[in-house]
């Protein structure tokens, strides 16, 4: 019997009001408290939306984060922000993490808000995007042990029921087969005994060629980007859970509930994972807030209907 659920991962878009407030603060037109107050409003509205839509895990939305690396860089004296680089094939840019000293998380500086969904960059993507890293496999292991594991513990301590690791590099740029055991080991270091669910999610590329390895990762579920992946490649027996990235964070067209249910039901029938989670293919902060809100509603409704269908 498959457990079915849904949640929204990643950075959630800011409202038009928060975009304006943040801009005004940065330009000295308003005090910082104006943006902070609006951010609290945005967060409360997002949480209410998820509850109303019936999502299984409720995310804070990480509205203050500039990108997925920044809170870790700011909480680790051995990391610095580097040049802006394109965030895969998007008109969005992230600042490269630069390794400039020992990797150690200052837990006081890693002041994440309470959230049921924790968010971290995956060790493989982090090690590939970092500058000044030296041996990238060694870096991946060190990141997992000294930075990502403590950060995951912080999320768990503050109420997270699930930690979501973003691994876009895997599907977007690929991975050499001999690196998979090191990646599996790094993921195990992050998740072993954590006490919350762990999901590794790859996107911005075709996960089909990676399926046999993804299926063996020591996690509760692996996520794929259905906008870039052939559904047929997911057929087979899944030992691990499956997260379907079926709300397209790069399209302004809002998905149909019926099509989403039909697609998920088909995959469920063909893959039979122990856990099936519905979500977006990538962070929704590539969309304006109002469109993202619409997709959250579809996500909740589609999951509810899927449970009824199966």
């Amino acid at each position, binding site marked *: 019997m498959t457990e079915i659920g849904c949640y929204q991962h990643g950075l959630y*878009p*800011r409202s*038009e009001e928060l*975009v304006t407030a*943040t*801009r005004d603060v*940065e*330009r000295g*037109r308003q005090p910082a408290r104006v943006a902070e107050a609006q951010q609290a409003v945005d967060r409360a509205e997002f949480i209410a939306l998820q509850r109303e839509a019936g999502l299984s895990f409720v995310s804070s939305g990480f509205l203050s984060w*500039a*990108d997925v690396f920044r809170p870790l860089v700011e909480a680790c004296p051995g990391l610095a922000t580097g*040049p*802006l*680089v*394109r965030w895969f*094939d*998007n*008109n*969005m*840019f*992230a*600042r490269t993490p630069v390794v400039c000293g020992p990797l150690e998380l200052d837990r006081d500086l890693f002041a994440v808000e309470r959230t049921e969904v924790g968010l971290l960059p995956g060790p493989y993507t982090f090690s590939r995007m970092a500058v000044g890293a030296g041996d990238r496999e060694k870096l991946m292991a060190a990141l997992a042990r000294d930075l990502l594991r403590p950060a995951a513990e912080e999320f768990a301590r503050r109420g997270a029921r699930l930690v979501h690791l973003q691994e876009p590099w895997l599907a977007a740029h690929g991975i050499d087969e001999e690196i998979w055991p090191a990646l599996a080991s790094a993921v195990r270091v992050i998740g072993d005994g954590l006490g919350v669910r762990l999901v590794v999610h790859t996107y911005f590329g*075709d996960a*089909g060629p990676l399926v046999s390895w993804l299926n063996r990762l020591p996690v509760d579920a692996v996520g794929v980007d*259905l*906008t*870039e*992946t*052939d*559904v*047929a490649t997911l057929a087979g027996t899944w030992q691990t859970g499956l997260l379907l990235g*079926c709300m*397209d964070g790069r*399209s*302004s*067209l809002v998905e*149909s509930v019926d*099509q989403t249910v*039909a*697609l998920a039901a*088909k995959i469920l029938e063909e893959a039979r994972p122990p856990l099936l989670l519905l979500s977006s293919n990538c962070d929704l*902060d*590539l*969309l*304006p*807030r*109002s*469109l993202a809100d619409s997709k959250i509603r579809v996500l909740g409704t589609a999951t509810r209907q899927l449970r009824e269908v199966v």
Partner: protein
Amino acid sequence: MLRPLITHEVGSLAKPAWRVKAAAGRPLTDIDIDEARGWGERLGVDGYERLLDLLRRSELSPAERTEVKEWSSRYGLRFFESAGLDVVYDGEQQRSEMYAWAIAHANGFEFRGSVRSFDNKYYSKAAVVGPVSLKAPFHDDEYELLRRAAHRPVKVPVTGPYTLAAWSFDERYRGRVDLGKPLADRRRVHRAARRDFVLDLARDLVRPNVEALLGLGASWIQIDEPAGSTEPSEVGLMAQAYDACVSGLAGTFSTHLCFSDYELFFPAIEQMTGCQQYAVGFANYDSRDLGVSGDARPGYHVVRRFRDLPGAPALGLGVIDIHTDFIESPELVRDRILYAVKVFGDPDRIQVMPDCGLRTRSWSVAYHKLRSMVAGVSLARGVLGL
């Protein structure tokens, strides 16, 4: 094209608070008016007292708000001229933003809302929903104003078709996608849709706008493609669209590329036969150490690829990082230039500029950076005996 190592800007400059507030009908403070006075004096803007008079009024008519925007353009023009640049424009003071301005003057689009670009920077993103066409040429008025006001040659920046497409949602060409269909079929549909969208923009929006500018006497038009490498497999499409904008037209045409892995542009941009200069940002990736060796200049290794382009186009060399307040020293600028000249073996093919538009910097920081850039060019000219 002027002398070796000519300097120019790339595009945007921050809009002064007095311009933003006046255009929005919001009250101005004494600080805003002092800023207008201070820069008016510093830049030697003729007749700026008229601007101060306008800014002191409690309410501005629509015509007066337009006049304030025109003053902002004059200030921008003098800003670059006073900093010592050889080729100038107004920092796009008339435009809302490089994407939104073009889309607002096009048929076939609807704005959907704000989307993050990086950090806390957002832009207003539209969706294409119908046939694309030009409502009316949208740089003519600013060009007429600047042509009359400029003391130096001008270069008009125009947002390119690939960037307009890449920064838009597509609700028309591709439509709704059935994720249950085979991936190969979906990708085929995506490629065809993207191609139609980009080439429609080139033919029916950007090219008629370029033709209108040429008709008014514009001689150098820079077609900006900051999104050029967003999808590496589409760089050839970007190049094809560029030529669709300019082929058969008489003028100097250049492009601007930034914040990319520039290796991705090769060999596709070898097709861009109508491009006489590539303005490319490099400083963002470079070391701040002095030196002209390859080790000292890690951000500039890729310039050799531009050297080898067919037709020997010029390279607009980005030497100023626009994402930091760090003021590059003239010596650092000099060394970046000397490295590129060494690789090219020909200073005539090197021109000098900031990495990108300076709109994220304050005017004070931007001015210091540009003055330092110009000083660095003088040092480089001295070393090269130019």
